[in-house]
């Protein structure tokens, strides 16, 4: 009997331990996960201010490093040389953001499936086919050949790895425990992947196929009419109109007039699943940014004031990580990107800078003519040229690795298809992300810069993604440079699909860096950018035919023009400006149409609301919800019948062109819905889209009531990077703004960092992002800045001049002792 019991009991025990040691479906192995000694319990941190001063031994350091933390969790690093500085930046960034660094580099490198399985295979294949690895390797080679970037990358890697090496499994960030894997050593190429990822986010797509389809269906006349190269209703370009281009121009390339274009429309439905990489898409509005600087004349301090708020996906942890970096040659404060040494947006004792995206066309598609199905040769410059191949192996958790040979031409990887021929990829991608360079040096030199000349010199080293670099210094200069390596093109080159056989369709070199559009100390007393057109049409070179809509830029410029005696708070208020320029432009016209139409009681009630509206997208505004629902519906009611098809995707005319037509061309044929026998007119479309608006709002939010408030309808979410672990998301927030609003908070995107810097002998700076320094949901620094961000407030930033400076907001410290 006892033997029987023992024979039963021992296997039960063994089975229990085995069952608790392995993952079940998405659930982690419960034994180690639930054990308070090793599991998630270990990731809950004490919710009180830490006043510890600790000493760590570090054998890689050349000298001691002192770190002071302030009450928002920001590290202030005091090192004696660059290696030690970036070592410590790497160590501390990993301490707060290790899993984020791991996830983001995996996403960029196409290595998510190693940890997440087949669900992310397609995403990984997209990254591989785009050549993220090709670009990262090319950039790493350049970076490692230059002493300063080499030191930074090696120091940063050593620091991250020193942190990883001292972790025990119980110390791993909770996401590793949930997913059941361990951190791997950090490599310098990971930094390049992070830069590639930024280039992808900001400059990694094009509409070439969609607009080529429009050209083929409707011809050049419609393109010229509906898809003009400069806004026709309203624009307020980044470089003020009238700026003169005072330089020796390069000859402008011309398009080959004999070029053959075929006329078959491009179908972009995946026929052979897995081959197509449809990157022909619109950048979501809300990925953009604002920055500006006002001159000493406009400020009350007697020095310039600079502001920047980059709009990116709002995530937890934040995209940004605040840090102060100090060496004998440098003292800079600002935000860094986890995984990249140095400060990306910030200020030092002498100057401040910030960035917004330039919507330059640096992503083009070329139609390739292969000799045969082996795709080993392609026609270019009247001869057959050899392709090269790059093998991509994606390791997939639980499955066999997936191998793929990617064909490369001199344009770039051939990984998309226009579905002509046999559906095999026949479109090559020419993309700035493949261009070798050392953009890190730009940030490194800006971190150390003393004056305007240093700023201009630093910018020349930058490749991409092209940014509008705003600048202000203690010498009372303000400036803005549309900066990046910009291809030299003929007019509209890359607006449509390009011919991969014709040399005249190749990028014809680069716009010289010093001829990139820029402005210094303009008459108007301020510089600004909000992703709109870089210049007016007088700039000699072609940058792109379409930029972000003009509304944010228009609003910023009108407010800055009126500003006098401004301080940091004036600029903070502008960052939180909820005024809706689009509504001001178009709503009176729409309401006048409704005035002449018979309305139902519900329509009348909604119209009354709109009549009284002050065009401000405040969180509680009901008319803002109505208008913000209405305008996109109106656009789709106008254009969907002619410019939307499942089979043949097409680009739709811009908001600017639509407004122009609504205001000035009410009899255009485009208002008619070609899918009905009735002949619709502009008022018909306005009215039917208005009814659809009310139906939509009623469907999701009930009858008109405070539930229609803009913050509820917009429903901004700040999600954890996993996107699936909802309890790690931020709690619901109540914010106004919107796309096209200076306060550009949409459902998922918005001001990922708001900064205002008052220049002067002792700069005073303010900043905030929606989250906190720590990526650990169990840390008191996970969400500590959220409430202030939601309220539109800023934290004063603690800018120290020496490690032993006393400051009431300093809390704890770490001293890294050289062994």
């Amino acid at each position, binding site marked *: 009997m006892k033997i029987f019991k023992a024979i039963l009991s021992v296997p039960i025990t063994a089975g229990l331990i085995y069952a608790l040691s392995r993952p079940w479906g998405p659930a982690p192995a419960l034994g180690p996960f*639930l054990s308070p000694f090793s599991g998630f319990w270990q990731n*809950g941190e004490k919710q009180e201010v830490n006043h510890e001063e600790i000493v760590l031994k570090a054998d890689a350091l050349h000298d001691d490093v002192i770190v002071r933390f302030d009450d928002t969790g920001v590290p202030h690093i005091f090192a004696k040389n660059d290696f030690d500085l970036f070592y410590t930046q790497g160590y501390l960034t990993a301490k707060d953001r290790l899993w984020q660094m791991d996830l983001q580099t995996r996403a960029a490198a196409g290595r998510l499936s190693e940890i997440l399985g087949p669900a992310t295979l397609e995403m990984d294949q997209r990254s591989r086919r785009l050549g993220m690895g090709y670009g990262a390797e090319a950039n790493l080679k350049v970076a490692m050949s230059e002493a300063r970037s080499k030191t930074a990358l090696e120091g940063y890697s050593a620091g991250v790895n020193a942190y990883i090496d001292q972790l025990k499994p119980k110390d791993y960030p909770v996401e590793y425990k949930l997913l059941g894997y361990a951190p791997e050593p950090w490599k310098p190429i990971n930094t390049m992947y992070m830069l590639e990822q930024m280039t992808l986010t900001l400059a990694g797509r094009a509409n070439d196929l969609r607009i080529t389809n429009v050209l083929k269906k409707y011809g050049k006349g419609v393109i010229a009419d509906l898809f003009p190269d400069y806004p026709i209703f309203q624009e307020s370009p980044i470089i003020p109109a009238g700026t003169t281009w005072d330089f020796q121009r390069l000859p402008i390339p011309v398009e080959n007039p004999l070029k053959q274009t075929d006329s078959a429309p491009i179908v972009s439905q995946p026929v052979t699943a897995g081959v197509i990489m449809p990157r022909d898409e619109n950048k979501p509005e809300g990925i953009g940014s604002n920055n500006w600087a006002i001159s000493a004349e406009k400020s009350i301090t007697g020095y310039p004031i600079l502001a920047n708020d980059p709009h990116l996906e709002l995530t937890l942890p934040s995209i940004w990580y605040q840090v102060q970096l100090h060496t004998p040659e440098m003292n800079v404060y600002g935000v860094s990107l986890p995984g990249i040494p140095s400060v990306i947006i910030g200020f030092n004792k002498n100057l401040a800078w910030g960035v917004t995206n330039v919507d330059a066309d640096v992503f083009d598609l070329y139609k390739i003519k292969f000799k045969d199905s082996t795709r080993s040769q392609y026609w270019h410059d009247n001869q057959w040229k050899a392709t090269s191949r790059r093998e991509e192996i994606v390791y997939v958790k639980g499955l066999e690795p997936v191998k793929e040979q990617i064909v490369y031409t001199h344009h770039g990887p051939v990984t998309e298809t226009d579905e002509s021929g046999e559906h095999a990829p026949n479109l090559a991608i020419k993309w700035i992300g493949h261009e070798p360079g050392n953009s890190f040096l730009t940030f490194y030199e800006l971190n150390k810069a003393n004056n305007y000349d240093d700023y201009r010199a630093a910018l020349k080293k930058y490749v991409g993604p092209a940014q509008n670099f705003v600048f202000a210094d203690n010498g009372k200069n303000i400036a803005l440079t549309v900066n990046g390596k910009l291809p030299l093109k003929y007019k509209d080159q890359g607006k449509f699909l390009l011919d991969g056989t014709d040399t005249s369709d190749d990028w014809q070199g680069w716009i010289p860096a010093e001829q990139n559009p820029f402005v210094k100390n303009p008459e108007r007393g301020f510089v600004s950018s909000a992703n709109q057109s870089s210049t007016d049409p007088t700039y000699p070179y072609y940058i792109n035919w379409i930029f972000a809509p003009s509304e944010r830029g228009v609003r910023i410029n009108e407010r800055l023009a009126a500003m006098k005696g401004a301080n940091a708070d004036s600029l903070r208020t502008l960052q939180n400006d909820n005024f809706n320029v689009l509504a001001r432009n178009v709503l009176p016209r729409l309401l006048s149409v409704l005035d002449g139409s018979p309305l139902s009681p519900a329509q009348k009630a909604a119209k009354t609301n709109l009549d009284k509206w002050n065009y401000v997208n405040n969180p509680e505004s009901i008319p803002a919800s109505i208008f913000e629902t209405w305008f996109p519906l109106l656009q789709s009611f106008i254009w969907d019948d002619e410019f939307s098809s499942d089979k043949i995707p097409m680009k739709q005319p811009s908001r600017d062109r639509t407004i122009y037509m609504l205001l000035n061309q009410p009899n255009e044929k485009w208002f008619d819905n070609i899918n009905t026998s009735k002949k619709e007119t502009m008022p018909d479309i306005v009215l039917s889209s208005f009814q659809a608006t009310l139906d939509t709002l009623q469907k999701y939010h009930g009858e008109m009531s405070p539930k229609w408030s803009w913050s509820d309808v917009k429903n901004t979410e700040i999600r954890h990077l996993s996107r699936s672990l909802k309890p790690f998301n931020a709690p619901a927030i109540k914010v106004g703004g919107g796309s096209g609003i200076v306060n550009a908070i949409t459902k998922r995107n918005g001001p990922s960092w708001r900064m205002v810097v008052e220049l002067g002998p002792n700069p005073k700076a303010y900043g905030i992002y929606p989250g906190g320094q720590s990526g650990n949901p169990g840390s008191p620094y996970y969400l500590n800045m959220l409430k202030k961000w939601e309220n539109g407030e800023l934290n004063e930033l603690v800018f120290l001049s020496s490690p032993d400076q006393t400051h009431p907001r300093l809390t704890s410290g770490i001293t890294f002792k050289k062994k």
Partner: protein
Amino acid sequence: MNLIIIIIVAAICQYFGPWWTAALIPFITLAWQPTATSFKAFATGFVAIAILWFGYGLYLHTSSEGAMSNRIAQIFSLPNGFLLLAVTTLVGGLVGGFAGLSGHLARKIW
């Protein structure tokens, strides 16, 4: 006595070693010093590890004000971290209990 030995030794072993020492220590302890009945062996192992996991878990839960445990509870569709602590305690208890019983019975055979 066994109870105290298990709690102390299992705490040290789990602090430095893998989680399954929560089974190993009750097994060895009860194989070394079997109890009067099988039930008592199970109970000793169960209570020892349950106390240990509950106590340490409670400390981590309260000192972090549930910052992590309340969120993990939601991932597992539990209302709060305290209930997750109850689940943790039960799992730890079962591991300790079966391990203790197995140790006790193994000793009786050989």
